[in-house]
C-alpha cells in the first residue's frame, strides 16, 4: 500500500448558531491512496458534502473546522491561509460539483475558462494552454473539440457541460479530485458515460478521487472503497464489494435493503398469475435521520436500530474492525483482537 495521498484525521466541522453549536461532521477519519476512488455515501444532511468542502477549503462561514487535520501528500492543508489554499485548489485538488451550469461562467466561452485555469496554475505559454485545452476537451469525450472550444456553456447539453466541468477540474493535472454528486443532475444514459469517464481518468492519471453521492449504484460501479456517513459520523468504511454484499453496520444493512433493485427471476412469465400482486416490500428503516440539534447520546443510529442494546444508548462506538471493513457499531466490540 502506497502512502496515502489524502489523509483526514478526526475531522470535526461546526456551525456556531445562536441556539448552540451544531456539529455537522464529527470525528471523521479516512485516507485515499493515489489512483484510488473513495466513495462517500449518505443521505441528505449526513455531512458528506461538508466533508468534501472542508477538504477543498470552501466551507461557508460560520461553518469551520473545529478539530482534526487534513493532509495532502503529507502536507497539512486545513491550517493554510486562504491565499495559499486558493493556489492548491485547482492546482493540486480539482472539484466537480452537482450542477454543471452553476460551475461555469455563462459569459465566457468554455475554451477561455479552461485556458485561464491552465495559465493560472501552470507555467505555460498561451498557445500551449490552448493546445492543452483542446486535448482536454477531446479527452473528456467532447466531439468536434476544435469547433466546441469557442462555444458558450449554454450551447452545451447537461451531459456535455458536466464533461467540460470535469475537464476544468483536470486542467492543472491535480492529484486529487473531489466530485460532489457529479451525476445526480443527469439522465441515466448520460450518467453511465460520465462514470466511465471518471473511472478511466482516475486510472490513467493516477488521480485520487473522492466521489460524494447518495447513489449506491454509482459507488458500486466506480469506487474501490466506500465510506458510509450517518448524522455527521462515519458509520462504516471498507472495500466496496464487502460493504455492498456484506454490510456490517445496521444502518448500512438498512440502506442497502431499501434500494430498489430490478428483481431477476420474477421475470419468468409462466410463474405470473394475472391479477396477483407480486411486489415484494422493500426493506425499510423506520424513522428519519436525527436533526443536528437532536443527535441522541451514544450511537447516533440507536433510536432506529433493530439491534440496539444498552451500551448503544450510553457510549459512542469507535470504528471497529468488522471483516475487512470498519464499522462504528458496538456489535463488533468483541471482534477486537
Amino acid at each position, binding site marked *: 500500500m502506497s502512502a496515502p495521498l489524502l489523509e483526514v484525521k478526526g475531522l470535526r466541522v461546526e456551525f456556531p448558531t445562536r441556539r448552540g453549536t451544531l456539529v455537522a461532521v464529527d470525528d471523521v477519519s479516512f485516507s485515499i491512496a493515489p489512483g484510488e476512488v473513495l466513495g462517500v455515501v449518505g443521505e441528505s444532511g449526513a455531512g458528506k458534502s461538508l466533508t468534501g468542502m472542508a477538504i477543498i477549503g470552501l466551507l461557508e462561514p460560520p461553518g469551520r473546522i473545529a478539530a482534526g487535520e487534513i493532509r495532502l501528500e503529507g502536507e497539512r492543508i486545513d491550517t493554510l491561509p486562504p491565499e495559499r489554499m486558493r493556489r492548491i485548489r485547482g492546482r493540486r485538488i480539482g472539484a466537480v460539483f452537482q450542477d454543471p451550469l452553476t460551475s461555469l461562467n455563462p459569459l465566457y466561452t468554455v475554451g477561455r475558462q479552461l485556458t485561464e485555469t491552465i495559465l493560472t496554475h501552470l507555467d505555460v505559454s498561451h498557445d500551449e494552454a490552448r493546445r492543452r485545452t483542446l486535448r482536454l476537451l477531446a479527452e473528456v469525450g467532447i466531439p468536434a473539440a476544435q469547433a466546441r472550444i469557442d462555444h458558450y456553456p449554454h450551447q452545451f447539453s447537461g451531459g456535455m457541460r458536466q464533461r467540460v466541468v470535469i475537464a476544468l477540474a483536470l486542467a492543472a493535472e491535480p492529484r486529487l479530485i473531489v466530485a460532489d454528486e457529479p451525476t445526480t443532475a443527469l439522465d*441515466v444514459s448520460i450518467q453511465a458515460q460520465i462514470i466511465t469517464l471518471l473511472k478511466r481518468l482516475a486510472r490513467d492519471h493516477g488521480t485520487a478521487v473522492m466521489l460524494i453521492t447518495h447513489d449506491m449504484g454509482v459507488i458500486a460501479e466506480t469506487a474501490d472503497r466506500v465510506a458510509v456517513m450517518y448524522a455527521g459520523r462515519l458509520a462504516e468504511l471498507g472495500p466496496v464489494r464487502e460493504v455492498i454484499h456484506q454490510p456490517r453496520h445496521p444502518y448500512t444493512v438498512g440502506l442497502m435493503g431499501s*434500494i430498489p433493485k*430490478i428483481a431477476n427471476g420474477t421475470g419468468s412469465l409462466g410463474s405470473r398469475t394475472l391479477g396477483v400482486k407480486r411486489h415484494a416490500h422493500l426493506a425499510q428503516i423506520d424513522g428519519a435521520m436525527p436533526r443536528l440539534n437532536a443527535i441522541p447520546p451514544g450511537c447516533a443510529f440507536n433510536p432506529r436500530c433493530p439491534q440496539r442494546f444498552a451500551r448503544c444508548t450510553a457510549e459512542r462506538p469507535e470504528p471497529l474492525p468488522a471483516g475487512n471493513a470498519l464499522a462504528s457499531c458496538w456489535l463488533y466490540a468483541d471482534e477486537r483482537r
Partner: protein
Amino acid sequence: MNVDNRPLVRLIDVGRDFDVSRPWLNRVLEGAPRQLLRAVDGVSFDVAKGETLALVGESGCGKSTVARLIVGLHPLTRGRIEFDGLDLAAPGTDAPELRRRMQMIFQDPYASLNPRWRVRDIVAEPIRVLGLADSRDDEQQRVAALLLQVGLATEDGEKYPHEFSGGQRQRISIARALSGNPEFLVCDEPTSALDVSVQAQILNLMTNLQARLGLTYLFISHNLAVVSHVADRVGVMYLGRMVELADAAQLFAAPRHPYTRMLMDAIPDLEMSGKSRTPVAGEVPNPMAPPAGCAFHPRCPHANERCRSERPPLTRIEGGTVACHAVAEGRISA
C-alpha cells in the same frame, strides 16, 4: 387485489403541442416563424382498475405532460381521454364530476404544499371543496384518520409544512390526495426528491394504500428500478412517443425496444457481477427538430434505411406492444 378488465382510464392518440415561438413583435419584425414543440405525440394506453401503470423515460420525453393532460392541467391538442368510459372533453360529460375521482401527487414536496397553511387545512381542502364532510367534527375526524393512514400523528395537523422532512411532506401530499376519496392517483415522480431509505418508506406506503383502498395508479418515474417494484405494466416513452408498453415482468425479463434495452443497461449494477454498463453514445435529440422516421434512430445500433425514413407503428407482440422496425422484421430478437 382484483384487476378487472374494463379500463378506468383510456388515452386514444393523445397529443399536446406547446407554442414556443418568439414573442409576437419579434415574429413581425424579424419574420421568425411560429414554432411548435410536440411534447406528446400520438400516445395511447389503457389503465385497468386496480393496476399500476408506470411511464418511464428520460427528461423531456413527455411523461409528465401526459400526467398533466390526464388530470386536466393542460388541455389536449389532439386525441381523446376517457375516464370510466366517458370522454372527458365531450360536451355532454360532467368533467369536473369525473375529475374529482382522480388526484395527483407531485414530485417536489417542498413546492407542492402551501407554507402558510397548517397541515390540517392542507389535507382538509379537497374535503371542503368537494363538500364531503357533514360537519366540522366530521371533517376533523376525516383529517385525523387520513394522517394516521399515511403514518403521521393526529397532532401533526396543527403544524406547518416547514416543520416536516421531505419524506413526511410527501406523506402529507398523499393524505391530501386521498382526502377526496379518489379512485385514480397520478403520481409524478413521487419519490425522486427523497433519499433512498425514505423512498422505500413512501413506496411501501403507496403499495399498502393501493391494496387497502383498491386504488389505480399512473406512476411516472425515470428510475426503472423503482418502477419494477410498483408497476404491473410499464410504458417507455422517448421524445413524446410511446416506444414500448408491456407487462412489467415481460419488460424487465426481456426488453424489446433498443431504447428500453439501453435504459436497462444504464442501471447501475449493484450486484457487481462485473458486467460493465454499456454507455450509450449520444443524447436525446432536440425535441424542436426530432429526427425523421424512428426518433431513436441516431442512437440506435440496429438502425437502417427504413428506420431513418419511416416512423414505426406500435405493433402487438407477446406480452405487450413495441414500436420498432428491427423487432417487427425480426432483425433483433423479440
